[in-house]
């Protein structure tokens, strides 16, 4: 092993010294590098570490933001849904109200007098009834002008509409309507009685029922016991009061003509009273019941 001798001859010593310096330099740079590498690595590590932290931070922020947004959306939805159900309920309530109003308007028919506004006035509807049975309806279309006039109507010709209008239409329309209602209801009632007599008690009639358009003169012959031997009665009912459903004059005669026995006379007189005080079909209903009673007694 050669000892490094600084005092060696120049050539060998220069090579020796310079090479030695070179070797020392290399050593130094090598060691510096080695000491630097962990540093840069460390620095890099540090840098990367901070980057990672930043990214993590960002990730957390974003996650938080997403969560927050989701939460607020949910809250929004939760807020919106109660609104929508309120709307639906309102619509149902309105529909119900509409149905109610329609029903009320229809129910007005039962009051007998109702109306609807038209472009030129009002269309009045008179619904007639007798003994709780709703009968025909009649319309009067009024034009609201000065003077008040009737545009068109469905009142039958034999009802004295022009007379009633001449008396009351211009001065007191309420009176006009109520008077017309009276006439129409009475007419409907008389017509109902005559129709019922013809349809329900044809068996007790011995001939056709004579009637006129106003149903204020009725004439018919009837028997209490349809198959029996008794004489038929002839009845003539006059309704001179057109606003009434009961007759003003009643004549009952017996077709036998000759002097009647007292029992027949009593019956005849009682029938006259009955026709004056009770509606026609009710009188005949009582005849039919009595007949049934008699029949059941006989058998």
């Amino acid at each position, binding site marked *: 092993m050669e000892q490094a001798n600084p005092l060696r001859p120049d050539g060998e010593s220069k090579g020796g010294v310079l090479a030695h310096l070179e070797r020392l330099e290399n050593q130094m740079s090598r060691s510096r590098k080695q000491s630097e590498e962990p540093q840069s690595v460390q620095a890099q590590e540090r840098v990367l570490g901070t980057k990672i932290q930043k990214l993590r931070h960002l990730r957390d922020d974003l996650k938080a933001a997403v969560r927050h947004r989701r939460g607020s959306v949910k809250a929004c939805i939760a807020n919106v849904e109660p609104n929508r159900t309120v709307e639906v309920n309102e619509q149902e309530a309105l529909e119900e109200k509409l149905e109610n109003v*329609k029903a009320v*308007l*229809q129910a007005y028919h039962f009051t007998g007098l*109702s109306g*609807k506004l*038209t472009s030129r006035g009002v*269309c009045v*509807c008179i619904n007639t009834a007798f003994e709780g049975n709703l009968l025909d309806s009649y*319309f009067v*279309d009024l034009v609201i002008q000065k003077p008040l006039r009737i545009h*068109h*109507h*469905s009142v039958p*010709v*034999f009802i004295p509409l022009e007379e009633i209008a001449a008396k009351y239409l211009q001065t007191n329309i309420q009176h006009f309507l109520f008077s017309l209602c009276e006439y129409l209801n009475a007419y409907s009632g008389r017509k109902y009685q005559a129709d019922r007599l013809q349809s329900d008690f044809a068996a007790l009639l011995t001939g056709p029922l*004579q009637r*006129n*358009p*106003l149903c*204020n*003169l009725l*004439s018919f012959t009837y028997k209490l016991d349809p198959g029996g031997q008794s004489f038929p009665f002839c009845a003539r009912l*006059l309704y*001179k*009061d*057109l606003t009434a459903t009961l007759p003003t004059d009643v004549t009952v005669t017996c077709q036998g003509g000759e002097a009647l026995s007292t029992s027949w006379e009593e019956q005849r007189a009682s029938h006259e009273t009955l026709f004056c005080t009770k509606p026609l079909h009710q009188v005949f209903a009582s005849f039919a019941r009595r007949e049934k009673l008699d029949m059941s007694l006989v058998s």
Partner: protein
Amino acid sequence: MDETVAEFIKRTILKIPLNELTTILKAWDFLSENQLQTVNFRQRKESVVQHLIHLCEEKRASLNDAALLDIIYTQFHQHQKVWDVFQMSKGPGEDVDLFDMKQFKNSFKKILQRALKNVTVSFRETEENAVWIRIAWGTQYTKPNQYKPTYVVYYSQTPYAFKSSSTLRRNTPLLGQALTIASKHHQIVKMDLRSRYLDSLKAIVFKQYNQTFETHNSTTPLQERSLGLDINMDSRIIHENIVEKERVQRITQETFGDYPQPQLEFAQYKLETKFKSDLNGSILAEREEPLRCLIKFSSPHLLEALKSLAPAGIADAPLSPLLTCIPNKRKNYFKIRDK
């Protein structure tokens, strides 16, 4: 059976078209079902008629039965006659009308028979509270002519009666008198209304031609109606005068309504007015006397024709009130004088 009655029935049946024959015979209700079944209605008409006459003879048809058949034929062929309208009136403060059909018929017949010994009067009641009266007129010395009867349709408990126009005018006052007295009225006046269509006359006189009323129940509001303009038209087509067209449509609807118009064949205007001219010094303008002139509008359905005038562009809307007042005033004969 009297020969004249047989001849009368024969001529009446001959008038009836074959497709209506069974219906009318059933309405007549004189020949029984069994008798009618023995007739072969597919034969030649003359043979059918012969058979029917034979059956009528078997049943001894009377003049009344024959007259009834004539009434039924006329009821089925109302349009063959022209009908006038009469209006009766009562005095003031009259009692309530207690119409008794039997009394009316007896009274009517008696009045005519008292005045003219020879007259045939027959009645047939219908369901709409009307009684058809057929009168065949004779004189004191001649038998009634069954081939030129007059028909009257009277609606009881109303002041209105419809009479078939006939050439025998001299009996009209007597007929009017009989009708007035029998129905317990005082006066009778002929209205200026005439048509072949009895139903339309009835609708006009009783003011029943408009039967549409607004109610809360109606599902289609009355305002909804097509304007007559095709709404399905291509949207690239624009009506030039749509505003004007809509105005015309609105005015027409207000005047004539949405209901079917009663059927009349004509409207007649008799003018007695002074000549009006813009030109001065015209010969006609100097006349003191009014000019007389007659204007007649004819149509198979006059009111529908008038209704379509403005929408068709032939006349301006609104139409003259002289034309549009016809159903409202219940007249189609007008006399126009200077006021």
